[in-house]
């Protein structure tokens, strides 16, 4: 869970960096996307690195989901529905930790939609295009507010997921000592905030006409 989570967090940061290229114009954005396909050449065939990368990501996502489902099933077995408390108070837990499971499901559904929309372009609000930049700009036009809204909800869920996930992953890896906890908490909140804002900026910029 922690190791695959770490891979996915690092990927998100790289993905966010790519997204923010949108503010440097169409050429930079499309050039970056194209550059990813040429990465590793001539050692690897075209898109070779990209496919390796996708394979690692897919494996990480699947292992991450498998671990999450088994934890959830174990929790259900450890306290079945028939044994739930009639009154239960939240003493310490963060809202982020509360949203891990359903937030995770929302993120998984969004990722499927997101790949079909902006990567494969099977779902193409505003028209399909060979240019990733145009897909982005077409997809987040104001009339497709529901697409933007789903995106915002998912990105906020990712933010919460990272807030608890980074903290929890570090505990699982055994580095979460008491004297480091304030720093680790700040790091977890910091990365979660940066990633949330970083991912929200491009589509919102499109919706509000700052990028066209």
């Amino acid at each position, binding site marked *: 869970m922690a190791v695959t989570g770490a891979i996915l967090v690092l990927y998100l940061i790289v993905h966010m960096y790519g997204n923010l290229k949108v503010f440097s114009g169409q050429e930079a954005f499309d050039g970056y996307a194209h550059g990813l396909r040429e990465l590793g050449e001539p050692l690897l065939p075209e898109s070779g690195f990209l496919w390796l990368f996708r394979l690692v990501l897919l494996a990480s996502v699947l292992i991450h989901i498998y671990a999450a489902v*088994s934890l959830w099933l174990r929790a259900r077995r*450890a306290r079945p529905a028939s044994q739930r408390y009639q009154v239960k108070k939240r003493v310490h837990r963060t809202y982020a930790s509360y949203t891990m499971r359903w937030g995770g499901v929302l993120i998984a559904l969004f990722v499927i939609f997101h790949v079909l929309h902006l990567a494969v372009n099977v779902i193409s609000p505003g028209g399909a295009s060979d240019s990733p930049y145009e897909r982005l700009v077409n997809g987040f036009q104001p009339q497709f507010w529901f697409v933007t809204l789903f995106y915002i909800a998912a990105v906020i869920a990712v933010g919460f997921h990272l807030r608890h996930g980074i903290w929890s992953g570090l505990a699982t890896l055994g580095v979460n000592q008491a004297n480091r906890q304030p720093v680790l908490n700040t790091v977890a909140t910091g990365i979660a905030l940066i990633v949330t804002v970083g991912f929200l900026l491009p589509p919102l910029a499109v919706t509000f006409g700052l990028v066209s």
Partner: protein
Amino acid sequence: MNITLRVWRQKGRDDEGRMVTYKLTDVSPDMSFLEMLDVLNEKLTLEGEEPVAFDHDCREGICGACGVVIDGEAHGPERTTTCQLHMRSFNDGDTITVEPWRASAFPVVKDLVVDRGAFDRIIQAGGYVSAPTGTAPDAHANPIPKPDADRAFDAATCIGCGACVAACPNASSMLFTAAKVTHLGMLPQGQPERASRVVQMVNQQDAEDFGGCTNIGECAAVCPKGIPLDTISQLNQDLLGSLSKGIG
């Protein structure tokens, strides 16, 4: 004080169980929570009803026998054991809900009494040290750095009451096991079994059907002995070390 109690009543392991409401008048704010239950039981006995069964022993907050979930919090609103909680923490006219620890690994025996034998079996799996025979060694033969001794002692204050499991949304016993692993792992006497201990104890808690830890922190927040959450990190560190060496 007038108090309305909603108490979990269950005749035995196979009984379904239900919440029953009782009204108590003239409760003194200076009574402990258990004394208030004693008053209730006296009243029930006089009325010819079965008294409410609950675990208790020292009533000084050091044995770990007592423990119920009060208004959704393990051991109630104060960070102490149920026996050291007093009625002054409540208001006149309050309705208080009292439930047993809830976990498959802690089956209800009767009313508020649960079987915490699972904790004993986790201890049996690895919560011990080898004691060589022979004359006692000199007291200063084993120097222990003060910070290590302090940390071992902090972890050793765990009384095994089970509040961590009761409060955990996953019903995980990780804080309990981590306290034992940290306590013994910080001391030279605990080193010979250190690598195998953590694996055996974690395997046992899995076998007992406790849930998995997701580092939420409810356990440490309700712990009457203030066992620090980072003992879990120390357990994970030991566990990763053992597994990477192929132990277990």
